[in-house]
């Protein structure tokens, strides 16, 4: 009777938790069983492992092979156990050196013995890094995990290469950090100075924006350019976001290069699609937008349940899914941009085309963006189609680059003043604003004339504080409050 143990891991949410793959090869009727709550993909490993071993010239033991995935009560998903199972059987039967089992192994096997990457490799790599052991993975996935500092990655092309023991450590080319590459540039939007200004303020203050305007006004174009004027992802943020994308099986190269994610779910998205769910649970759009921008186009058309589900991430920056098999937590801290038509037909307030909607219908339509979402919208702006003449005239429009620099400077100033916890409301916000006599009067007048609620005043101050930061001012002045009052919600 021979045994072997190989370390591996399985995903729970965006974390990989350690799993011990225990192999027992003993005499008896030839059989191959896997126990330990694996899903169908885990059980199919038996056929892939058998074929891959034979294809690489190894011998599959003509004996009773039992695989246990410990801890046994945790559900395990996916094809990442192929590699550790094969590794364990090979080590237990003495076909490869025992030292090969020192690594944490995660990978799927092809029938020809090739090793393929699995979703969430970045999360597995981080878990492996925590154990301090080398990480055995598919060569294809090497560039993505190179971003994990200090990891000892052992790339493996095929099972046959294990005859000499673990492969040598290798590092892929570190992802090039070239912020702003590829993403659409602000200069491509002609005109719309007020909307661009609102985007700049939103970027500087991390504020939610709602664009209201007829179809074809450029709401989506504007929203797509928000990631490009945000400062690039820090290394830490890039890893956080990339892990989520990796778990969802998406490309992480752009994220690791510092580009902020931009997610624009369609308004037919289900609640699970928006905030995550399913079995096994997968991160939703809100989590994929972590550290980036979540754009809700046609916001009133989203199902009320889906919008309601955004409440937790909007307030806490993460969301928790509670399912029969346990709780998983996904990060979801994003900048919110929403867009909507002014009315169901879209032409309310259009000078060229009259609106055909009855007033009561317009009100119902607007009321569909309910509480939790509106609470996180700090700025509302009307966006209109621009004059075609303006499109054809080749006026110089500002590029993203200088805007990004101003946004970064404003963020630095806010951070120096407020520290890590941004002053979002209450006494801290008032202190941060340091109103003078003129600006205090302006706030009072605006609150009176526009009948602002307490929350409305807080929003006004938050926007004014950000405008002052963009201007490099220590105190919020009257003109900052005046401009901020132009971005108040439509009542």
């Amino acid at each position, binding site marked *: 009777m021979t045994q072997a143990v190989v370390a591996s891991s399985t995903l729970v949410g965006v974390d990989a938790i350690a799993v011990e793959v225990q192999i027992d090869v003993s005499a008896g009727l030839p059989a191959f069983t896997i126990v330990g709550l694996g899903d169908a993909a885990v059980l199919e490993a038996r056929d892939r492992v058998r074929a891959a071993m034979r294809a690489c010239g190894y011998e599959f033991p003509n004996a009773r092979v039992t695989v246990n995935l410990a801890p046994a009560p945790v559900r395990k998903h996916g094809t990442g156990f192929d590699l550790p199972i094969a590794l364990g059987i090979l080590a237990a039967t003495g076909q490869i050196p025992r030292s090969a089992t020192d690594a944490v192994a995660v990978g799927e096997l092809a029938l020809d013995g090739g090793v393929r990457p699995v979703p969430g490799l970045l999360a597995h790599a981080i878990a492996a890094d925590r154990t301090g052991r080398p990480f055995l993975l598919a060569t294809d996935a090497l560039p993505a995990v190179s971003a994990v500092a200090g990891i000892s990655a052992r790339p493996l092309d095929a099972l046959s290469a294990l005859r000499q023991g673990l492969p040598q450590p290798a590092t892929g080319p570190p992802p090039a950090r070239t912020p702003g590459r590829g993403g659409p540039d602000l200069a491509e939007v002609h*005109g*719309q*100075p*007020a*909307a661009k*200004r609102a985007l700049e303020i939103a970027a500087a203050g991390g504020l939610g924006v709602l664009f*209201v*305007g007829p179809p074809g006004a450029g709401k989506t174009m504007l929203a797509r350019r928000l990631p490009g004027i945000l400062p690039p992802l820090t290394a830490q943020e890039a890893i956080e976001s990339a892990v989520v994308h990796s778990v969802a099986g998406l490309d992480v190269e752009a994220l690791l290069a510092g580009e902020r994610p931009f997610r624009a779910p369609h308004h037919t998205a289900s609640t699970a699609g928006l905030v995550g769910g399913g079995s096994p649970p997968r991160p939703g759009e809100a989590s994929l937008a972590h550290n980036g921008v979540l754009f809700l186009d046609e916001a009133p058309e989203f199902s009320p349940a889906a919008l309601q589900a955004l409440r937790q991430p909007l307030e806490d920056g993460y969301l928790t899914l509670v399912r029969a098999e346990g709780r998983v937590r996904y990060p979801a801290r994003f900048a919110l941009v929403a867009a909507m038509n*002014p009315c169901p037909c879209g032409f*309310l*307030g*259009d*000078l060229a085309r*009259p*609106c055909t909607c*009855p*007033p*009561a219908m317009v009100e119902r339509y607007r009321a569909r963006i309910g509480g939790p979402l509106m609470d996180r919208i700090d700025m509302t*702006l*009307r966006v*209109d189609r*621009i004059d075609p003449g*303006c499109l054809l005239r080749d006026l110089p429009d500002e590029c993203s680059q200088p805007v990004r620099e101003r946004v970064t400077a404003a963020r630095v100033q806010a951070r120096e003043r407020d520290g890590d916890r941004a002053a979002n409301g209450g006494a801290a916000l008032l202190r941060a604003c340091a109103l003078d006599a003129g600006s205090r009067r*302006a706030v009072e*007048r*605006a609150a009176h*004339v*526009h009948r602002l609620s307490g929350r409305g005043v807080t929003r006004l101050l938050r926007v004014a504080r950000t405008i002052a930061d963009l201007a490099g001012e220590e105190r919020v002045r009257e*003109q900052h409050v*005046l*401009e901020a*009052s*132009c971005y108040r919600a*439509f009542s």
Partner: protein
Amino acid sequence: MTGDLRFVLRLGDPGYPAQLELTPRPPRVLYGFGDPSALRPGLAVIGSRKATPYGLDCAAFFARCAAESGVVVVSGAAMGCDLAAHRATLEAGGTTVAVLGCGADVDYPARARDTLALLRAGRGAVVSEFEWGMPPARGHFPARNRIIAGLASAVLVVEAALPSGTFSTADHALDAGRDVLAVPGSVFFHGSAGCNRLIRQGAAPVCCVEDLLDSLAGVGLLGSAARTGGVDPAGVSPLSPESADPVLRALLAHPMAPDALATALETDAVTVMQAIARLETGGRVARYPDGRYGPCAPR
């Protein structure tokens, strides 16, 4: 049902409004709720449901003028200009009549519930040619418009698109031989096209208090005593004093969005937004529901 002020007037009854009886198609039965004496000849103030602040302010302003001169204000209790006229009249202590396209005891639109309750309690009257409890229906409203025109001696249209229900009320008014008055609007705004068309067709333009009082006197709603009694309804004129501020001048003449205004004045959007916000808190301009900024009554 005791304690409430319901009344039913049949064509030919002594209390049936005489001016209504003389219209081409007077309603055979008039169901009323409130004070029947409110059904004396008055001024109809009507306008769009999708009103701009300009239209709402005009409705409220001229309704107040009429109320303070003791003239009954008739309207249709619809959202927008109609409700603004009813409310301004009540605030000024005047009498106002709402003509509904449903039973006179039905709260429609729901937004008008408070106002209708005041009228039913005797601050005016709610009338309808439809049975008690009849729900509103699309076809009822044109019929309702003819009663509004019939109860009034003159019809003031404050803001109307083309074509629109408001415009049809003006047609009924002409059929019934009533004077039609209209408040002019921007020539660039389709929401004002109805009013401007009425003026072109011969309606009397109403641009200030004097214009309205002249017209009211012309149809016999204002005794000469009241005229010479120095009636100065609100003490203000909707005309804004001359201003040198280019932003204010531009917006008063033609409502615009900040972007368009910045282009027109060849300056940057942020400066324009600050100027607009200053004027807005000063009560000189207001934001329209479509995001443009334009004139409103001085507050």
